[in-house]
C-alpha cells in the first residue's frame, strides 16, 4: 500500500497540513473514550471512521484532527463519498481526508471531487495511477465543495472550450 497525497500530483482546494512522520490514528471508539483527555491538545491526531460511522459522529471535533481516514470496506460501499462531502462542505474539515481500504484507481476521480485528498492505493506506481485517474475526466456537471466549475457555470461564462475532449 502506498499513501499518495494529491498535492504530489494535482492541485487541490484543500490545504493538507504538512505532517512530519506518522500521525496516531484512533478508532471512533477510542476517541469517544479519550475525548476529554485529547480534545484540548495540539499534538497531531487522526481518526478512522468505518463506513457506517457518518460525518455526524465527529461533527463537533473536526478542527482537532489533522487526518480523517474514511474506510471503503469494499469498493461497492459508497457511504464514505457522502461522509467526505459532509465533512468538507458542512462541517468545515480542512485537514487531510484519506481514502483507505478497497480504493480502486477507477474511483479516484469521484473521491477527489468529494473532498478526499489522500489515497491509500495498491502498487508501486500509485502516484502515476492517481495522476492518470484524475485526468481521465475533465468536465463535470455537478457542484461539490471543491469549487471546480460545473458545466452550467462554464456555459454561462462562455468557457466551454476550456474542456478538452
Amino acid at each position, binding site marked *: 500500500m502506498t499513501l499518495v497525497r494529491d498535492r504530489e500530483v494535482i492541485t487541490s482546494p484543500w490545504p493538507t497540513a504538512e505532517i512530519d512522520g506518522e500521525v496516531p490514528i484512533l478508532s471512533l471508539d477510542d476517541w469517544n473514550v479519550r475525548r476529554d483527555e485529547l480534545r484540548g491538545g495540539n499534538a497531531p491526531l487522526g481518526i478512522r471512521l468505518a463506513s457506517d460511522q457518518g460525518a455526524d459522529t465527529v461533527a463537533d471535533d473536526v478542527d482537532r484532527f489533522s487526518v480523517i481516514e474514511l474506510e471503503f470496506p469494499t469498493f461497492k460501499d459508497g457511504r464514505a463519498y457522502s461522509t467526505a462531502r459532509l465533512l468538507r462542505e458542512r462541517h468545515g474539515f480542512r485537514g487531510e481526508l484519506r481514502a483507505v481500504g478497497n480504493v480502486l484507481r477507477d474511483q479516484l476521480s*469521484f473521491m477527489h471531487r*468529494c473532498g478526499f485528498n489522500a489515497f491509500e492505493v495498491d502498487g508501486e506506481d500509485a502516484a502515476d495511477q492517481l495522476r492518470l485517474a484524475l485526468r481521465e475526466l475533465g468536465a463535470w*456537471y455537478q457542484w461539490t465543495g471543491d469549487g471546480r466549475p460545473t458545466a452550467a457555470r462554464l*456555459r*454561462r461564462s462562455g468557457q466551454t472550450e476550456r474542456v478538452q475532449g
Partner: protein
Amino acid sequence: MYRYDEIDQAVVDQRVAQFRDQVSRRLSGELSEDEFKPLRLMNGLYLQLHAYMLRVAIPYGTLSAVQMRKLADIARRYDKGYAHFTTRQNLQYNWPKLEDTPDLLAELASVEMHAIQTSGNCIRNVTTDQFAGVAADEIDDPRVYAEVIRQWSTFHPEFSFLPRKFKIALTGAPHDRAAIKVHDIGLIVRRDDAGNLGFEVVVGGGQGRTPMIGKTIREFLPKAYLLSYLEAIMRVYNQYGRRDNMYKARIKILVHEIGAEKFAQEVEAEWEQIRHTATDIPPEEEARVRSFFSAPAYRRFDGTDAGFAAKKLEDRAFALWVRTNVVAHKQPGYAIANISLKPVGKPPGDATADQMDAVADLAEQFSFSEIRVTHEQNLVLPDVAEADLYALWQRLRDHGLATPNIGLISDIIACPGLDYCALANARSIPIAQQLSERFSDLDRQHDLGELRLKISGCINACGHHHVGHIGILGVDRKGEEYYQITLGGAADEDAAVGEIVGPAVASDELTDAIENIITTYVGLRQNGERFIDTYRRVGRAPFKERLYDAG
C-alpha cells in the same frame, strides 16, 4: 431535441478513451475478469448466458433519425443484424465481442450517444412519457427536466456506488405513461395555486421481488430546486439504504422500513442544508436546455384532413391501425403514430437493422426526424401530419411495422428471459410468441380492448409482470419452467400491484389458463368496460374459480 455542446461531447469521448484503456488492460491479462467486472458494468456491458450484452442508453427515449441509423449500422456490423428495445427505453445488443466494444462506444459517441450508467449501482437512464412535448394533456415538457437530470446524474461523484441501482422517471402529464409510481423516484409535473411549475415527488416504488407503489413525500417542489431535492433524497439513501442484503437494498425497502413520513423528514432536513448551495442549475441553464425542445415548424391545418377521414372509411385495415396506434396530438392537424414492435409470433421489442433504417427514413420524411422509444418496447413517430398518416401506414406495412395492436392483449411486454439472461428461471419470449399467436385474431383483440399483458422470466420483474393487468412470472419448479399468473396490476396513475390468482401452471397449460381468464372477463364485463375495470369491480374470485377449467 437536445444537442451536445463541447462539454457533453468531451464527457462521452473521455469515457470511450477510458474504457478503451480498461478493455486493453483486460485483454492483456493485466486485469482479471473479477477486476474488470465493475468497470465493464459501468459501461453497460454484461456477461450473459452465451455472450456479452451491451446496453445503450436512449436518454428519456428520444432518438434522432441519424442516431437510429447508427444503431442499425452497429447492429449489422457488431451484432447479428438486430437489436432489442427494453422496458427502460434503452437498446440492447446481444452479441458484441469484447474487443469490439470500445469501437462500438466510439461509434455511439459520434452521434451523441453512450452506454454510461446503463448498469451498476448508480443512477440509471432517466425515463419519461414517450409523448413528451406532443401530448394533448401535458402541463410542461418533461424532456427539459429529464435532460437536466441526465447531466446531473452522469458520473455523479457522490452517488456512483449506491446500495443498489436507482431509477428515476418523470411525467409532464397527469395521465402517467411512464410508470413513474414503480420507480425509485417518480416526478409528476404540477402547477401550484399561483400557477408556478414544480413537481410532486414520489419515492420508493419498484418491482422485483418486493413490488411497491411509490409514496408521495412532497406535494409540490418548485422546479428551481429539482436537483438539490434529488440530491437530498440520494444522500439520505446513500447513507441509510441497506447494504447487508442486495435484495433489501433498494430505496423502497428503506422507505418502507422507516416509513414514508420519517423518510420525508430526513430528506427535508437534508434539503434545508443544501438548497442554497450551487447544486441547482441557474435559470439560464434551464432556458438553454429548454430551447432545444421547442416545437418544430408545424404546417398550419384547419380542421381534420378530409383525405385522412376518407381513407379511414375506405380502408378497414388502416382504420384499425388508426384506432389503436394513432394518438391525439396537441397541434391541430397532427397525430402521434405508434409503431408496434409486437408482430404476431416475434420477440417483443426486437427490431432488425433494416426495420431500424426504415423507421429512420420515415421519421425524416414524416416526423421532423424524431423517434421515441416507449417503456412498452414500441417506437413512436411523434409529429406526423394527419394528411400523411395513410402514406406512413403503407410504408410501415411494407416493413412489417404496422401491427395494429398498441395497448391490446398482443402488445406484450416481455423481458429477454432464459433465452438470453443469466438471471432468468424461465423463458419469456416463447411464451409471448405463444400468446400472441393464440390471440392473433385482430377483431377479437380489438373487441377485448385495452389489456396490458406483461411477462417476466424471474422475480427481478424486468418484464413488469407485477403491474400488468395480466402478469405472468416464470418460476423454476424442480428444473421445470412454471408460470405464476397475477391479475389487477396497473402502471399508470392508478398504479397497483397485481394479485396472484392461483398456483403456477406449466408452460403447456399457460395459454389455456389465459384463455380462461379472458373468457371470464368477456362474460362479466359491462358496458364495454376494460379488463382492469371489470377486475376492480368483481375482484379475484370469479377468475380464480375458472382459471384451470379444461378448455
